[in-house]
């Protein structure tokens, strides 16, 4: 058509406002009479609350659990057998179970004054032993986060597929591998503004959310208010990554407060709250053994995995999604006959673990890909040889893997081959052998993953969490002047949906992308959706928009045929026109006729008109499997532990790319976060469960100097199950980098006998490992 449809690399429409600072975020909302909230938060990880002392002057400005009459705790229950339920109080009752837990809510005309009030509230706490180590938490005699459980385990799971058959393999490699606790760190934190709309009889909640409809479900449950009386508006959102897919106790508290006070109230999360009290993710521990033949062929993988799930089960994903997923996705893109994985989702006195871009995949990819490199070293093979022998082959597609994941399509070995060629392994090895003038060590690393995306009803019904995606719906409406409005219940906050869904619509209707508007982020204006998560929106909302536009097109053809005095079956739709035997009529004329000149319509015209809501599910809902091979070259300064990424290649297959520019942006953004996981980001805790990073001076994020531009190559094998063959790609960029980079560092340090098995691989850890390996560091030789 006009080069704006599926596959066109259009710049994002939304960037015009976002890059000019004209986005409208929760923090930009100003309402008359609005007051600010600051929370009194627990300074201790685990304590009994003896008393909360509120100065008399502030009695009517400070609210505690005792005030929250009838408000229910947040319950995110999984239907998996033996899952133990936690109840997350909106304001703490009896005990506090994590640093930063909400204890009291303080209201004032400004945030600064609210913080003054918060500072005057005195907590009388009896400190209890903090459960801060997930492995120790599993042992008998550990302090209990939720006493009535009798232990600290939300859920234990076991998958055993004939591991006994692998035990006699000639190569057996065991490693203890772990990923540090992280924070998601979108530029915009959480924020909520609540006011009462008396005309609509609604509580209007402006909140930075990836899933406004799910927030409404959760708020309705906690507040015991019917859903029709709650409207969620999610305006521009400055990065979600999973953190904004969570119902926070703060949201519930603000709603209660607005109902109580009658005037608008606001809470804007600050960075300290964000880091220490809320946005935690990623903390996994693996004891993993690989069994292999001498040629590198895997015989089996045996793993014990523990996930530090924190103090409460977060709504709606629950405390077990991450841990239980580990067992089902650890095998990655590989084909091997035996497998065992036992997992524990453990409660600790830390923030609830939340799903972060890639969710459990980043952890399992790190564990599996590091152990594959260890197999390569043990067997005297190259890392690429071990992977070549074990990847699922294209002729096996579609392939059901050992945990019964259905890989829809692709050529995994080709992705690896292209990555090896692009990075030029031979040249990298030659450079490595030659040595660097500055003494740094060159390392080469690989990592490959496949990602189940846009998985639907059958998968989520199995988890039994409060949110199960069904059909995704979209509305399409032609305006009288021939423009197009699309409505979706998912949310766009970096994905570029305002552009890419307009491209999808253009593919069907030919309406210019500039004339198509996306309405989203408002429960009052959009169809129900579970929202934007799980790399699902381009598959699901893309499919729904296409379906709605097709229905709209068919109606337009019937109207157009009448205007052309032809039969509908004699007409076709082409380039935004209905074309008949004797002429054609543009969509804009059809729209004008429907709305403004109904006297020109046929008597039996479809009364539904030019507005359609349609639902969509892929042919199978077991998910699309996008995948990628990442290859990286690093230079490691083994004396200081500094790592420089010299080259980074990504060969990915996202199926049909609706907008290659947007896909590249998603991958590059994911890479930035993956580099953070690999090298910088870590929330550490002391023995009392105190988080040790409360500002971005302590919690290091990669910056422009640390994130090189990746060289990206696309394969684009269409998924057989989705509308255009598109696959979900939103998360993949963040999955593979930690493993690839750690493998590269280990490759560089292998001659020194050092191996790093914990992310982030910080300078300190590198120097420690090098010194522990007993190697003669170069600075010692300098002295000689």
């Amino acid at each position, binding site marked *: 058509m006009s080069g704006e449809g599926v596959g066109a690399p259009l710049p994002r429409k939304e960037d015009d406002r976002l890059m000019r600072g004209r986005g409208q975020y929760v923090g930009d909302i100003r309402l008359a009479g609005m007051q600010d909230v600051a929370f009194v938060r627990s300074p201790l990880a685990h304590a009994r609350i003896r008393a909360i002392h509120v100065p008399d002057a502030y009695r009517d400005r400070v609210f505690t659990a005792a005030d929250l009459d009838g408000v229910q705790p947040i319950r995110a229950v999984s239907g998996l057998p033996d899952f133990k339920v936690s109840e997350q109080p909106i304001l703490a009752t009896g005990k506090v179970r994590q640093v930063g837990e909400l204890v009291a809510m303080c209201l004032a005309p*400004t*945030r*600064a004054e609210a*913080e*003054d009030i918060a*500072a005057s509230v005195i907590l009388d706490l009896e400190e209890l032993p903090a459960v801060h180590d997930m492995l120790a938490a599993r042992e008998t005699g550990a302090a209990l986060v939720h006493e009535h459980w009798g232990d600290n385990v939300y859920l234990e799971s076991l998958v055993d597929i004939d591991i006994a058959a692998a035990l006699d393999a000639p190569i057996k490699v065991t490693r203890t591998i772990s990923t540090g606790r992280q924070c998601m760190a979108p530029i915009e934190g959480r924020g909520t503004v609540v006011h009462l709309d008396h005309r609509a009889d609604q509580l209007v909640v402006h909140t930075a959310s990836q899933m406004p409809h799910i927030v409404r479900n959760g708020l309705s449950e906690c507040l015991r208010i019917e859903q029709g009386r709650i409207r969620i508006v999610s305006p521009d959102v400055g990065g979600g990554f999973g953190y904004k897919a969570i119902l926070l106790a703060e949201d519930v508290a603000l709603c209660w407060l607005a109902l109580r006070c009658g005037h608008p109230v606001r809470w804007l999360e*600050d*960075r*300290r709250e964000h880091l220490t009290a809320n946005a935690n993710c990623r903390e996994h521990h693996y004891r993993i053994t690989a069994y292999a033949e001498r040629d590198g062929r895997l015989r089996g993988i045996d793993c014990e995995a523990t996930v530090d799930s924190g103090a409460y089960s977060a709504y709606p994903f629950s405390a077990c999604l991450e841990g239980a997923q580990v067992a089902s996705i650890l095998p990655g893109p590989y084909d091997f006959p035996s497998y065992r994985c036992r997992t524990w989702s453990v409660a600790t006195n830390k923030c609830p673990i939340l799903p972060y871009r890639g969710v459990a995949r980043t952890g399992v990819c790190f564990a599996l890909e590091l152990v594959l490199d260890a197999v390569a070293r043990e067997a005297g093979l190259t890392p690429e040889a071990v992977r070549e022998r074990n990847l699922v082959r294209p002729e096996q597609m579609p392939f059901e893997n050992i945990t019964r994941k259905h890989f829809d399509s692709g050529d995994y070995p080709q992705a690896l081959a292209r990555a090896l060629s692009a990075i030029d392994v031979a040249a990298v090895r030659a450079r*490595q*052998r030659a*040595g*660097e*003038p*500055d*003494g740094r*060590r060159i390392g080469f690393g690989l990592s490959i993953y496949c990602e189940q995306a846009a998985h639907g009803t059958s998968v989520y019904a199995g988890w039994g969490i409060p949110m199960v995606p069904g059909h995704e719906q979209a509305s399409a409406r032609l305006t009288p002047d021939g423009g197009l409005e699309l409505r979706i219940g998912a949310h766009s906050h970096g994905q570029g949906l305002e552009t890419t869904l307009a491209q999808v619509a253009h593919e069907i209707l030919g309406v210019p992308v500039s004339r198509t508007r996306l309405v989203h982020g408002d429960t009052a204006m959009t169809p129900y959706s579970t929202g934007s998560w799980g790399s699902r929106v381009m598959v699901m909302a893309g499919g729904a928009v296409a379906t709605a536009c097709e229905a709209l097109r068919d109606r337009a053809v019937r109207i157009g045929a009448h205007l052309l005095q032809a039969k509908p079956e004699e007409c076709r739709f082409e380039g935004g026109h209905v074309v008949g035997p004797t002429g054609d009529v543009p969509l804009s004329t059809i729209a004008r006729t429907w709305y403004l000149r109904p006297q020109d319509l046929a008597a039996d015209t479809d009364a539904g008109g030019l507005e359609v809501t349609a639902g969509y599910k892929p042919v199978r809902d077991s998910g699309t499997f996008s995948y990628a091979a990442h290859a990286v070259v690093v230079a490691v300064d083994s*004396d*200081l*532990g*500094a790592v420089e990424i010299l080259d980074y290649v990504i060969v990915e297959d996202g199926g049909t790319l609706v907008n290659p520019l947007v896909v590249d942006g998603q991958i590059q953004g994911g890479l930035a976060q993956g580099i953070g996981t690999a090298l*910088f980001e870590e929330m550490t805790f002391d023995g009392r469960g105190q988080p040790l990073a*409360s*500002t971005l*001076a302590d919690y*290091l994020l*990669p*910056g422009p*100097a*640390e994130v090189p531009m990746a060289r990206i190559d696309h394969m684009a094998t269409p998924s057989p199950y989705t509308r255009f063959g598109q696959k979900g790609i939103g998360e993949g960029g963040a999955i593979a980098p930690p493993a690839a980079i750690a493998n590269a560092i280990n490759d560089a340090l*292998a*001659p*020194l006998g050092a191996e790093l098995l914990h992310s982030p691989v*910080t*300078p*300190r850890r590198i*120097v*420690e490992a090098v*010194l522990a390996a007993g*190697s*003669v*560091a*170069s*600075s*010692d*030789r*300098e*002295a000689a």
Partner: protein
Amino acid sequence: MKPAPFAWERPASLPALLDRLAEAGGSVKLIAGGQSLGPMLNLRLVEPGLVLDITGVPELREARVEDGTLVLGACVTHADIEDGRVPDTTGGALQRVASAIAYRPVRNRGTVGGSLAHADPAADWVSALTALDAEVEIAGRGRRRRMAVAAFVTGALETALRPGEMLVALRIPPMPTGAAWGYVKHCAKIGEFAHAIAAVRLEPEAGRGRVVIGAVEGPPVLVADARPLFGGRIGPDCAGRFLLSVAHTILREAGLTDPVVRHVHVTVLARAIAQAVPLPAPRVVPEAA
């Protein structure tokens, strides 16, 4: 993250400022660029009753050369030095240090006096000015005194300032003829707080050397006579004679018990020395195995 309430004043002259500083009851904090104090206020790590903004005093923003000594007013910014808006008597050493402090927005506002008075061990000026043998000029109501930077910084976030006193200027001697300057810092990422700093001023012809190891837990470790680090003699070939073991001993005596931390500091020191007096040819590490 909003500060507790405080009063704010911006005196227009040094005597007025020193009067307020002497008279004010309760806790007083001086603010210039606010690059350290700002976050500390917001985090409520400090809750002063009065914040005195010293940027309204013209003489604190001045820079001049007096008999070869560079005098920088306390409110001269890192960017002023980076951009060459103030004179230089150090052969570019100051400019190099300034241009690598944190990030440009910090350098635009942060001041040399503020950085020194804050005395964060990881701050560049604390180490660099100690190595350059600079002095601070201190004023209180009706009194002035000078002291070496090395004596001024007494600990982490601690200085020799007495109540009612403030740092008004830095006095930086010219780089000695024939002196070689080396400055290396190690950060987890560009612009972040340093984990190790080494500043060296070596005079191979005169056989003298001054070495500072900074970003330690307390004040920087000053080796005013660096000859023991080179087997007792400083010459053009001294980079090749740098004795790691002596550096380790000095650091151990300074209280650095962690061998990993020491290794990093000694490495950074070796590199600063190599930067000041380069070895003849670049060295290539052969593969070990």
